[in-house]
């Protein structure tokens, strides 16, 4: 059996929706259990006093990266059928900065705001309302920003292609960066917590 199952027609649209719901519940559950339903926990990341977001996300990235690589290496997954979003460098840099700004101000990213809403947090509900308003504004403004949105098109490029190095080498570097981060995280957290208490 080869993955992706949907693209190999092993199940259709309806079943894929059921699968999506199950994965969505699982994702939300683990985000909540990691404490990511709380804006306090999430914004602590930006003050470098609690690097849980970094640790959870990088653990997920390393696990998924190694998993995807070995599954396709062993022939269980056809990676060329897995969707890669196109890189539009400048618009995506700007979008990333906007999202980061919203993250610090609002205390959530879009996914975690839904987790916060599910547990009945009022700030998450307000954030969700802002999210919907933003989608509406984006939709209305689309004709004016469409040209910019699709500018600096780099195609579906990956890091190994960009740097011209083997896929495995990029993985090793990312794993080492993650481990270095995990190793340094407690000291960073301690340093900035102390600094904060000194200031207060």
């Amino acid at each position, binding site marked *: 059996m080869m993955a992706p199952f949907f693209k190999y027609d092993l199940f259709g649209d309806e079943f894929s929706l059921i699968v999506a719901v199950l994965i969505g519940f699982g994702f939300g559950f683990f985000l909540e259990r990691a404490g990511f339903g709380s804006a306090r926990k999430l914004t602590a990341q930006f003050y470098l006093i609690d690097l849980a977001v970094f640790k959870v996300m990088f653990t997920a990235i390393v696990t998924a990266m190694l998993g995807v690589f070995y599954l396709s290496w062993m022939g269980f997954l056809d990676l060329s059928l897995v969707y890669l979003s196109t890189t539009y460098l400048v618009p995506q840099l700007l979008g990333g900065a906007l999202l980061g700004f919203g993250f610090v101000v609002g205390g959530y990213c879009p996914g975690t705001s839904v987790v916060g809403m599910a547990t009945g947090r009022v700030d998450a509900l307000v954030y969700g309302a802002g999210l919907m308003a933003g989608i509406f504004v984006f939709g209305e403004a689309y004709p004016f920003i469409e040209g910019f949105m699709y500018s600096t098109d780099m195609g579906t490029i990956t890091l190994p292609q960009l740097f011209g190095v083997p*896929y495995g080498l990029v993985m090793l570097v990312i794993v080492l960066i993650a481990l270095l981060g995990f190793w340094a995280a407690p000291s960073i957290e301690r340093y900035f917590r102390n600094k904060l208490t000194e200031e207060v």
Partner: protein
Amino acid sequence: MSKSRPPWKWNWIFAAVAVVLAAVSVGGDPYRGHVVTLNTKELGMIVDAKVDHVTAEELADRLIQGRTDQRILDLREPTSYAEYHIPSAENVVLGDLVDYPLYRNEQIILYSDGGIHSAQAWFLLRAQGFPGVYMLLGGLDAWKDEVLFPSLPAGADPELIAEFDRLVQVSQFFGGSPRQGSGEDFTATPVQMPTVEPPSQVPVARKKKKHKEGC
């Protein structure tokens, strides 16, 4: 707070596993390139069920309706393509086909002069896992006979004449010219291919299709 964390020993073991797995794979590539696995029975059944092609008339109908949810690929040489091609068709030679930017959720219609190249291309794309690939039945030859230059044999019955009137409109839409008279004359008279791109709502050089996938 530190009670819920796994003991440090486990963190070191997980870290070591990640480093080992990444180190083993250095130099590896998860993309399998152009090597594919084929389900020959499935392909055979698709051909048997005759769902691997569209007729020239069906394609003409699609274009007249202004539908843009298909990619039409012209597999002939660039010089033939420059002389004439079906509106909105893109020119790709067989050798370049596997690396041509196509998406697996697109309907791809292939044509060449006859049917050989499009049949080969159909097989290549199906083998690569493209589900919506169709050949233009009879190729560009059929497009000329049925769409551009439809013919009405002498002594046709009224039903055929009524049908021919419709074909005339289709033909004119694509810049062709219908023919009337006895069938034998047609082959002798060289037909004038439409030189200019016929007016069409279909944009000829399409930009890359925007995806609805992703997060």
